[in-house]
């Protein structure tokens, strides 16, 4: 009985003990849950805004969208620069655990040169970690297929289809249109200074030279933005909002593909430059420097071997001969000088001099030779221009004096940039007393002036300057600014450029313009004219002036022997011309390096251009 009672008591005691312990346990449960809830309160209420912000940042990314670059057409609507889709292999460094290893793995799949890898790693260091950086561009279809199949192995590595700039005519427009290239640190720096960096957030390329550079702002367009929702792998799930990019403006050039091709064919195998303008407006019709090079090589970064080949080529293809080629203008500037001679009263249309075949300064023994060794006898201004008499212009130059020549020729635009719409332009040199003092710390000698009369000595000009100075002649004093752009088109609306024309050369007797233009027409049309042979039997009228620039000095009384001279020391052939003779609509300037006479080599190039121009009705 007692045992039983004890057992019951024990049982009751055990139950009580358990009940106490159970309550303790349950208290722990309640307490723990309170801790959990307090923590939840801390996370969800007190830190709500912080986590809300981080959550938003987690899912919404603002992705800039590159605008499509404006296209470039010739005057007839033929596409000269277009955007074509290409595939590129890109990597977002932020999403790749080990970039070096990923590169090694990728190199096992497709060919990635160490050079590419190195430049990619440089880009990685330079750019922000979340930017997608191109490793290899212009993938072949086979490479695209291989990468697409293996893509799952490479998080952060993507295949991108982008629009890439292509120039279907290759080297035909290199020196006018130029090319675009990857934005480098200098470009980036400049964009930041101009506060344009934001507009280039999605762009990888920028105009490097030529029109692509000059009209970068028109061509580029405005960046767009997309607010996208992404997952933790950075993959875009959907687009929340988008602010579309605005494409760049299309450029319509005044250049004519046919004229360009004519120029290219005419200069085949030669070094030289061809430029043709509409003298009424300055619209550039042809702009060609030979040899050219393929601008497509530069779009995705030219390989150093290709670049060195271009850089070290004897033909110097990288030089834009039209605007950067600096040549002695030679006899092509005789009409200009004659005009000033007439205006200053040094000569008259009928005044003559005796040409014994050379010119000698008083009290100097040195003889300045006429190209016609035995002289032309009595010669007036017409004869001097038609036959390009050197003696006449030696004499006239000396009588004009350096100051008059320098000042007047500057009015024709020599020694100054023409202001054409590309940045690669040289001012060349129109010498003066001050210039020589500054350049050589020497006084101006009378002998220096003699050679100026035939466009030699220190005087240099670019082919474009020759063309614009010719335009001033045919415009009877009005200058134009050479312009490659004819108009822009944006969303279907064409807007023409406004050409500038202003009086640059003012003379007392306007009749003197006619004297010069008549002489130039006769250079082409009379049997004695230096350009007669090149322009026989044309169905249009034209005028012009030849030039043959001496590259090396020839010793006194020595005979010029082209064969004995090294190629680069042979004479440059030059020609300036216009057509039709009445109310010209085209002027040209031609330079062909190291080939000899202007009449025999340069004038035929002008003839081919004019023939094409009139038969194809370019300017109609």
């Amino acid at each position: 009985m007692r045992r039983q009672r004890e057992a019951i008591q024990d049982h009751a005691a055990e139950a009580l003990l358990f009940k106490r312990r159970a309550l303790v346990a349950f208290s722990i449960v309640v307490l723990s849950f309170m801790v959990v809830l307090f923590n939840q309160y801390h996370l969800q209420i007190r830190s709500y805004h912080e986590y809300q912000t981080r959550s938003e940042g987690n899912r919404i990314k603002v992705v800039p969208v590159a605008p499509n670059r404006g296209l470039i057409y010739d005057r007839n609507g033929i596409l000269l620069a277009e955007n074509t889709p290409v595939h590129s292999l890109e990597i977002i460094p932020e999403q790749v655990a080990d970039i070096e290893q990923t590169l090694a793995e990728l190199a096992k799949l497709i060919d990635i040169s160490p050079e590419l890898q190195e430049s990619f790693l440089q880009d990685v260091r330079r750019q922000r970690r979340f930017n997608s950086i191109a490793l290899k561009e212009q993938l072949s279809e086979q490479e695209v297929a291989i990468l697409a199949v293996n893509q799952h192995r490479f998080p952060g590595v993507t295949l991108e289809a982008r629009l890439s700039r292509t120039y279907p005519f290759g080297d035909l427009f290199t020196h006018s249109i130029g090319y675009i290239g990857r934005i480098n640190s200098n470009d980036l720096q400049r964009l930041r200074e101009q506060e344009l960096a934001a507009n280039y957030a999605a762009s990888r390329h920028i105009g490097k030279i030529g029109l692509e550079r000059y009209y970068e702002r028109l061509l580029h367009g405005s960046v767009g933005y997309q607010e996208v929702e992404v997952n933790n792998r950075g993959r875009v799930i959907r687009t929340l909002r988008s602010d579309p990019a605005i494409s760049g403006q299309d450029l319509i050039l005044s250049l004519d593909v046919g004229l360009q091709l004519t120029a290219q064919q005419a200069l085949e195998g030669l070094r030289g430059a061809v430029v043709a303008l509409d003298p009424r407006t300055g619209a550039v019709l042809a702009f060609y420097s030979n040899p050219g090079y393929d601008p497509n090589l530069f779009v995705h970064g030219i390989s150093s071997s290709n670049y060195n080949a271009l850089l070290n080529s004897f033909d110097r293809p990288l030089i834009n001969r039209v605007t950067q080629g600096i040549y002695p203008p030679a006899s092509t500037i005789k009409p200009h000088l004659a005009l000033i001679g007439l205006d200053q009263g040094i000569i008259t249309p009928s005044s003559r001099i005796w040409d014994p075949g050379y010119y000698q300064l008083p009290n100097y023994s040195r003889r300045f030779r006429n190209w016609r060794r035995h002289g032309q006898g009595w010669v007036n201004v017409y004869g001097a221009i038609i036959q390009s008499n050197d003696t006449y212009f030696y004499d006239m130059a000396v009588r004009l004096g350096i100051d008059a020549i320098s000042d007047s020729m500057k009015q024709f635009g020599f020694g100054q940039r023409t202001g054409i719409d590309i940045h690669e332009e040289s001012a060349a040199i129109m010498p003066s007393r001050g210039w020589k003092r500054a350049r050589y710390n020497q006084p101006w000698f009378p002998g220096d002036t003699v050679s100026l009369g035939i466009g030699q000595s220190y005087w240099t000009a670019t082919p474009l300057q020759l063309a614009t100075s010719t335009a001033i002649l045919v415009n009877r004093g009005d200058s134009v600014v050479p312009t490659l752009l004819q108009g822009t088109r944006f969303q279907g609306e064409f807007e023409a450029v406004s050409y500038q024309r202003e009086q640059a050369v003012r003379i007392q007797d306007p009749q003197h313009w006619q004297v010069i233009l008549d002489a130039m027409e006769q250079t082409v049309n009379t049997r004695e004219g230096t350009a007669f042979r090149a322009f026989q039997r044309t169905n249009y009228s034209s005028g012009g002036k030849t030039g043959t620039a001496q590259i090396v000095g020839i010793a006194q009384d020595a005979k010029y022997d082209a064969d004995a001279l090294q190629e680069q020391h042979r004479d440059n052939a030059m020609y300036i011309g216009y057509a039709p003779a009445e109310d010209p609509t085209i002027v040209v300037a031609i330079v062909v390096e190291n080939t000899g006479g202007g009449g025999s080599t340069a004038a035929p190039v002008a003839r081919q251009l004019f023939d094409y121009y009139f038969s194809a009705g370019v300017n109609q």
Partner: protein
Amino acid sequence: MNDVISESQRPRGLAIFHIDAPLLLGLLALMGFGLLVLYSASGQSQAMMQAQLIRLGLALAVMVVFAQISPLTYKRWGLPVFILGLLMLIAVLLVGEVGKGAQRWLNLGFIRFQPSELMKLAVPLAIAWFISNHNLPPKIWRLLVGFVMCVVPTLLIAKQPDLGTALLIATSGIMVLFLAGMSWRLIAFIGLLISSFLPVMWFFVMHDYQKRRVLTFLNPETDPLGSGYHIIQSKIAIGSGGLQGKGWLQGTQSQLEFLPERHTDFIFSVLSEEFGLMGVVLLVSLYLFVIGRCMLLAIRAQDSFSKLVAGSLTMTFFVYVFVNIGMVSGLLPVVGVPLPLISYGGTSMVTLLAAFGILMSISTHKRILASS
């Protein structure tokens, strides 16, 4: 006490089938809530919903079956099953299959089986049987034997390595000893002992990935793209849920796959993000209700064995909940413990409901026990 007996002498309603109605209701409410969250967390996967529904149905069936079995049977079979489980754990270490980087599975030819799941039930049953053979509070040597019975399987499982399950099994064993009335002085002493053994654990027992988890837990922001990523993303998900949540299926963290393992271990983060603090309060209330009800059943249980088993299973369930929520919300290091009744998952769900089956059995078989 007479009240309890007289009440249980007249079983009403579901009690006829040995089912505790309030507990069942609480479980069903949690399961329903869980399915709702899972639908969102699985990315609205029909297949996963179907699999989970089948699993829940199976687990409920197992619960009903376990509820029919008399507590006496459990008391009788506790030790043999415990020994069998121990042998299988050793077998797993020797010939077990590797799944997800850990050796947990034993292939018996016709079924792949996790012995550690069996031990979740066998450990509390066996220890409770051993302790309750004599008067409570137990003598020190009995506590020591009980402790060893708990530690051996725990270490075997931790070795697999499965820290989460090891933790749960340790809890179930220790809880039996605690509820049996081990003296507070002893508890303090053991607490001191364990904390002095922690460095030993760190250097000699823990695997590298376990150490990494602990380090990451201490400062997740140091490695935001590595192992700290889970915790950071989880906290962002929870925090950005705010008071009311982003709405069902609207959680950006979960829907956009920022959250790892979002339908299994990290499902609580999905719930927090989409239902906010209000959802969390509801969930915790449901858990508290279930735990409270189970504790009540344990206190009302007729004999010490039943009380200890019921109390231990209840506290294990609690540890499940607490460890999971604690880990995903940054209170505890990441250990692989699912959120009970909510997470998508296989064997643990069945074991869990088997435990509730045992609890129901204990609460509904008293009359028979009293008359015996």
